[in-house]
């Protein structure tokens, strides 16, 4: 039993820190740490720096320009990223479609798409969910009908995160209606600029535009954009969904959010004293910090087991549930710490270049919105109910 990093791992951590000290743009880090909005340009600027460092695709084979980090290295990167305020990587290209292309795509597809993901030329989004199919993915209705060298795609996708920035979308489409629900699905790569595609914003309850609906009306997609075999898309989809699940618990993000909460509670007053010194509030913070400590060790245990050759199984599902509950609890406390100032929604203060006086606290403006926005954590990425169903079946055999 050894909970410490090896000398190599410590050296890697130093390397990560040196890199971030030198290369992470201060304005971007400030936005991340202050929960401000990031622009498309912010993401692209940072991706370029990562790609130059060779650290963008951290689980691709080296032949495609990836770097094969160990699970522990990946964890060290995540920890430091969250601590430094590195923007979350947009996963749809590098972490989602790329592994599918690498494993199931043909050589031409690899040559065509992977370099463009690395360079940032392509911004991918995901076409999985549909209005009628939330957790029940296999009931999807978007049709793709073969017509010569093309598929003609008709239907609608929803919850397409950052689809407004994307020029490429990977989609699950139904190519066969004669077979069982999961058997007639194919995996298509679609250029967003193809005629017939419309993107419509979905505004969330906090006023944010993060997700979209994507409509397909007689969209012509070349058959060479089919990944793998026709009607076998469900296999690829499952591969993608199980790929990279540990990250969903968001332990590093919770640590950053907790640190932010403690700073906030040190500045806000109650009865003339910092809120963090209030017995009840400090116990509430303590409870969530304790739970986070336990979840962080659980996370390390999963990482160490994967490093040792194990497969992260339903433990990741349990951790996803616990991790999202913890982050939501932190968001709840942050909102509570504002007291009456949880009400004002001062959008101008979300802008990092805002130079006026802050209404209450320099970091207050995003907090209530974030609390509401992060209710999604227990819904998206496989809702917490679905995760519990998975654990029931897979680990418990119920």
């Amino acid at each position, binding site marked *: 039993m050894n909970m410490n990093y090896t000398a190599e791992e410590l050296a890697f951590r130093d390397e990560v820190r040196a890199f971030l000290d030198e290369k992470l743009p201060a304005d971007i880090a400030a936005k991340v740490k202050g929960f401000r909005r990031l622009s498309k340009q912010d993401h692209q600027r940072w991706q370029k720096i990562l790609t130059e460092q060779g650290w963008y695709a951290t689980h691709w084979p080296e032949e495609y320009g990836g770097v094969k980090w160990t699970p522990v290295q990946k964890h060290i990167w995540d920890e430091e990223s969250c601590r430094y305020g590195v923007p979350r990587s947009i996963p749809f290209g590098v972490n989602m479609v790329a592994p599918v292309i690498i494993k199931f795509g043909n050589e031409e597809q690899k040559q065509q798409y992977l370099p463009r993901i690395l360079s940032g030329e392509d911004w991918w989004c995901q076409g999985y969910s549909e209005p009628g199919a939330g957790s029940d993915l296999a009931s999807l209705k978007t049709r793709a009908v073969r017509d010569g060298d093309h598929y003609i795609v008709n239907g609608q996708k929803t919850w397409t995160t950052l689809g407004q920035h994307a020029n490429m979308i990977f989609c699950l489409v139904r190519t066969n209606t004669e077979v069982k629900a999961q058997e007639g699905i194919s995996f298509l790569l679609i250029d967003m600029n193809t005629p017939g595609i419309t993107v419509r914003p979905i505004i969330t309850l906090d006023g944010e535009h993060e997700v979209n609906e994507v409509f397909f009306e007689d969209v012509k997609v070349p058959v060479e954009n089919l990944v793998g075999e026709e009607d076998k898309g469900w296999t690829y989809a499952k591969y993608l969904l199980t790929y990279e699940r540990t990250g969903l618990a968001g332990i590093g993000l919770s640590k950053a959010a907790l640190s932010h909460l403690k700073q906030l509670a040190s500045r806000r007053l109650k009865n003339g004293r910092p809120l963090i010194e209030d017995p009840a509030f400090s116990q509430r913070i303590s409870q969530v910090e304790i739970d986070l400590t336990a979840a962080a060790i659980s996370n390390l245990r999963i990482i160490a087991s994967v490093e040792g050759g194990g497969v992260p199984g339903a433990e990741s599902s349990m951790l996803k549930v616990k991790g999202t509950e913890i982050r939501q609890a932190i968001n709840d406390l942050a909102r509570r710490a504002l007291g009456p100032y949880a*009400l*004002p929604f001062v959008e101008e203060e979300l802008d990092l270049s805002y130079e006026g006086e802050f209404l209450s606290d320099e970091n207050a403006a995003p907090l209530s919105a974030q609390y509401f926005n992060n209710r999604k954590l227990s819904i998206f990425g496989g809702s917490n109910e679905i995760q519990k169903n998975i654990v029931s079946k897979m680990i418990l055999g119920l």
Partner: protein
Amino acid sequence: MDFRLNEEQQMLQDTVARLVRGEYSFEKRLEFSETDAGFSEDFWKQLGELGLTAVPFSEELGGFGGGGVEVQSVMTELGKGLCLEPYLQSVILAGGLIGQSGNDSQKEQWLAGIAAGELKAAVGLQEPQSFYSLNDVETRAEKNGEGYVLNGRKAVVIGGQCADLILVSARTAGSSRDSDGISLFAISPETAGVERRVYPTIDGSKGCDITLTNVQVGADALLGNEGQASNAIEYQTGRAIAALCAEAVGVMEVANELTLDYLKQRKQFGVPIGKFQVLQHRMVDMMSELEQARSMAILAASVADEEQSDERRRILAAAKNVIGRSGQFISEKGIQSHGGIGMTWEYNFAHYAKRLVMINHQLGDDDFHLERYATLLQAS
């Protein structure tokens, strides 16, 4: 013992319900929210014309002397529509404070207008450092020849953006958190030195922070005796808590109806999601929380206009604590049961969910009131 409304109360509630149904569709509300006023001037006018803004006032003022139950009937229906009008601020709080503390000439000057809905008033009792404690007052009022000079800042004055009259607490004696030495002043927002920073609130309403810089007011701006406002503030805040609880029950009722409907309509894996036992039991828990909240709103209404006592204090703290917890529970679980759709701007549920959580940030959240209750806890 009878928990039914009497005929008059039922008529009152029906009137408001009809008005809200007719005038306050979800789409219209989004529009009202976007206006400068932050609510519907027209709807407010109708409330006034129908005598609804006069409900808690005496008959001389055009009201019908309604008590906690009558106010509850109005507020619950306004809650169902997520109405944005400053009923709580102007009618209950400002009206109540003037009614309790004002001298005859002040009452004459303002109360009839408030009761008629013609004068909109707001209250500035919180400050940037005060959290929810209304005795934590640092704004100072110094006496001078002409009256008083006020300096300080009042925080999160809901409805302050459009108020014709603002009641603010200011310290005329004592130090920061003393209950003695707090005075109440009625000021016009047009007075020199009054500056408002207006903002929307996340639940679709509007408010402002108010900076007072050498604001000169006359001696006639003082409401009640100098330095002795804290009793009236506590008492009227208690009435407002009861009213806010009633509003919350209306919001929760609709939130639960929407969630229940969704469970019946939405299908996944070939069946309505309401067939899943986990969602069923969660819905039962949400209904059960609503029942707890409803009981406390009723109890709060029953003491709202009673004489002040520790029992009244305890009940109101308990009610606000229950409402805060039930509201957040119904909001969070309702979103979860809806899934993504429950988080979208275009679907009304999300706005009910936001209002419920934000009600917890008005007049003290569940933690604050639990602490307050604990200080009043009787040993046996």
